[in-house]
């Protein structure tokens, strides 16, 4: 399943996203998106929308319930708020990805770490910045709980949520096939207050190919 080598002829887009920056891009139905953790242990906070209806967006709860499992990996269908399959994960050299931990925000950093952390850059700043730049009505209220590709947030049988060192490593990737036209919004996470980026946010690479 995992096509380690992509035919360069079919590559439509190839971008390196530095840590702390967003990326927004439309995928046509059938196109593949590969997200590569270039240096390892980097969280790629990701949202998906039906490209023709932003109220029809990735739903973490519907996705985990549909597969009765909280971790995302090869075979996971990403379900939307209106019950559509947005994308399918078709390749994964990492093993599992989180969708309960959400994206960091200045406001949640104040709660989690210290009031003085407010100024620190955060994913939801990047999400809003990219949404406003994209225009077309996308705004803060469209930011639902996201996927954290390459992040490891186990839940214990006692119902505790824990943050563990990443299961990712340099060069590991996840690959998705768009099942409909979708809008992708990624924040390459700038979080410095916990080990989600090994305290060293690094670039990721995204490839779009037919």
């Amino acid at each position, binding site marked *: 399943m995992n096509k380690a080598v992509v035919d360069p002829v079919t590559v439509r887009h190839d971008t390196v996203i530095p840590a702390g920056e967003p990326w927004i891009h439309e995928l046509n139905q059938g196109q593949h998106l590969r997200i590569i953790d270039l240096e390892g242990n980097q969280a790629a906070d990701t949202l998906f929308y039906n490209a023709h209806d*932003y*109220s029809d967006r990735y*739903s*973490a*709860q*519907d996705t*985990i*319930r549909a597969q*009765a*499992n*909280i*971790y995302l990996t090869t075979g996971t269908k990403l379900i939307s*708020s209106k*019950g559509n399959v947005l994308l399918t994960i078709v390749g994964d050299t990492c093993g*599992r990805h989180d969708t*309960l*931990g*959400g*994206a960091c*925000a*200045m*406001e*949640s950093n*104040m*709660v*989690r770490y*210290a*009031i003085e952390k407010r100024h620190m850059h955060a994913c*939801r700043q990047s999400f809003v910045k990219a949404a406003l730049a994209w225009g077309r009505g996308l705004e*803060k*209220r*469209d*930011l*639902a*709980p996201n996927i954290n590709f390459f992040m490891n*947030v186990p*839940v*214990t*049988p006692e*119902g*505790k*949520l*824990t*943050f563990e060192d990443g299961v990712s490593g340099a060069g590991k990737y996840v690959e998705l096939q768009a099942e409909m036209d979708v809008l992708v919004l990624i924040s390459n996470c700038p979080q410095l207050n916990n080990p989600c980026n090994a305290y060293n946010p690094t670039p990721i690479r995204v490839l779009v190919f037919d």
Partner: protein
Amino acid sequence: MFEDTIQPGATWSYVLKRGTAVRLTDIYGGANVSAIFYNWENPVERYNMPDTLKAQHTAHLTQGDVLYSDMGRVLCSITEDTVGWHDPLSGCSNAALVARKYGEARYQEHGNDCHTNATDSFAIELAKFGLSFRDMTTPVNFFSKVLVNEEGSMTFVTGHSKRGTYVELRAEMNVLAIFNTSQHPLDPNPNYQPKPVQLTIRRVAPPGPDDPCRTSRPENGRGFLLTERDFIQPQGDL
């Protein structure tokens, strides 16, 4: 202040004022209440599942926990809970799920026993407050328990909530609360049998410095501080 009953499969909404609390009581056992919450002063600030879970390092909710907004503030505190575990993970029922599990039952043939689902009901209720389906946030399922094992598999626990058990939510700001009593989406019961809950609204004392929800974690201490900053009043008469 007042009592009410949320009928089976019904929706109830109210702006719960800061300084009041709502108690939900499972009348017969086996109830489920899917619930969504908004800051009524600024509804773009709303309940956030990930922020609630990661601030408290938990994947279930019970007494001593609070419900966080996406703006680092506390919407509600769980001040009392005889149920012990509420599910924040599984989302709520929708039209396709209800039709698949229980078949179709329309008003024309079944009157007010017709089948309803939480997602569509929330959208209708949100519209009454000028909000829309786009504003839907992730529901909490009160009275329901879903276990997650080491491999991540989710299992609904049948018979979790007992007759007469209750949970009390204290509003820490003016909160638009919308409740729906549809069955939990993972409930294996093949029959359409939503349960009613009793609801009681009362005035409560504001949380003091030793409030158990405030002191349950250092994160919550900061969450309460940030919330209370929103309610600082000018001194004296203006």
